[in-house]
């Protein structure tokens, strides 16, 4: 019988960690881009467009990420495409995180006093110019802490992609458990690695919140 040392387990988990990190970064970047587009469209003049954005956010926040993953996975397959797990995972995570980021940022933009909108409108700025030069630079300071905080949610959400067969940290944990029969050690280590990845980010988000909100404290 082949024995597995603690180092064997840990080394393989750390190798799989690369994919958790890569998927998190990719979905954060793509989700952020899509979220920003949704933010601009959500402020648009067309009522239909605004309504559509509301529905998008409602649907992606009101359904489980697992179901979204399955729908992308099997939905793309309907078009006769061979869908690799990583593609379905990053697409679903992008759509999902965009809905949350758009909502977080919408709140930050809404917290900018209306006088700023009116003043910039008086200067004959277009909607895009208002957002770009007046509103977003101010909203950014409020947005940065919750955005970093949402990064933790994305990292944790990548664990669900193991269910459609993407081999990241959690999936590696399951595979190693099947080989070693030591679930307590393996899932303990998996949890520990996630914790070491997320906890500093959580703390950093709290730090940013204190630092960036100095102006709002009395």
């Amino acid at each position: 019988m082949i024995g597995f040392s603690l180092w064997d387990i840990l080394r393989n988990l750390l190798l799989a960690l690369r994919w958790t990190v890569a998927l998190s970064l990719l979905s954060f970047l793509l989700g952020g881009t899509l979220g920003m587009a949704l933010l601009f469209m959500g402020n648009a003049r067309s009522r239909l467009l605004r309504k559509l954005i509301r529905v998008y956010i409602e649907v992606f926040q009101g359904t489980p990420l697992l179901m979204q993953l399955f729908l992308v996975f099997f939905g793309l397959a309907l078009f006769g495409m061979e869908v690799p797990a990583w593609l379905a995972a990053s697409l679903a995570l992008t759509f999902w995180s965009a809905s949350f980021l758009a909502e977080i940022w919408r709140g930050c933009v809404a917290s900018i006093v209306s006088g700023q909108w009116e003043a910039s409108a008086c200067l004959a700025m277009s909607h895009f110019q208002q957002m770009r030069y007046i509103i977003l630079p101010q909203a950014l300071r409020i947005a940065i802490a919750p955005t970093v905080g949402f990064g933790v949610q994305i990292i944790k959400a990548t664990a669900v992609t193991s269910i459609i067969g993407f081999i990241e940290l959690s999936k590696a944990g399951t595979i190693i458990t099947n080989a070693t029969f030591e679930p307590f050690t393996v899932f303990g280590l998996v949890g520990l690695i996630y914790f070491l990845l997320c906890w500093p980010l959580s703390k950093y988000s709290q730090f940013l919140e204190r630092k960036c909100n100095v102006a709002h404290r009395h």
Partner: protein
Amino acid sequence: MSYQFDFYSVLDYAEVLQQGILMTIRLTVIGAGAGVALGIFGAWARTQGPAWLKPIVSAYVEVIRNTPFLVQLFFIFFGLPGIGVQITELHAAMLAMVINLGAYSTEIIRAGVAATARGQIEAGLSLSMTHLQVFRHIILRPALQKVWPALSSQIVIVMLGSSVCSQIAVEELSFAANFIQSRNFRAFEAYFVSTLIYLAMAILLRQLLRYIGQRFVVQRRTAVSTRAVAILSGGQA
């Protein structure tokens, strides 16, 4: 695209879906009830509890909030039997949901507790109320009022998160979807229908929690307690 959608083949399994919905509701009710109770205890322990308990509760909150629910579930279901604790899949799922929501609601309710004006606590103590009485009558109710929206959305998130419990063979809604597509090979339709059901459940749950908030958390003030609040907060209530 030459694919013919066939949603009727999913509706043939309406009974399976119904069983799944009931199990998801059962998990959510137990998770939310016990989770919020645990959160209230955690918030008490972190703000007023004994000194030895505070770091334990803080560590619990940080560990749970910074690890995925799926890994917590696997640790409880696969890990605990590894050290001799036997647990059924249903109990593992319930335990994981309670522990998970407990940590989040500890943090949410604690924020409400921290927002209590110092003068109100001192006023309560000067009326010779015990610390526990002050917490129960003066701090908790207004704290819950303040954080109810945040608590509600966390409960909805936990309800949606329960879909992961299908991975340890708990027969809830996503398990039902999985079962159906393994029988009729209509994967997209099965998951589509169950996703719509989840959406409806999330919307209904949000409405229900809003109703509970208005009915039981905000408005339930007897004449006496309204007067007490008015006196204690210097006539501001």
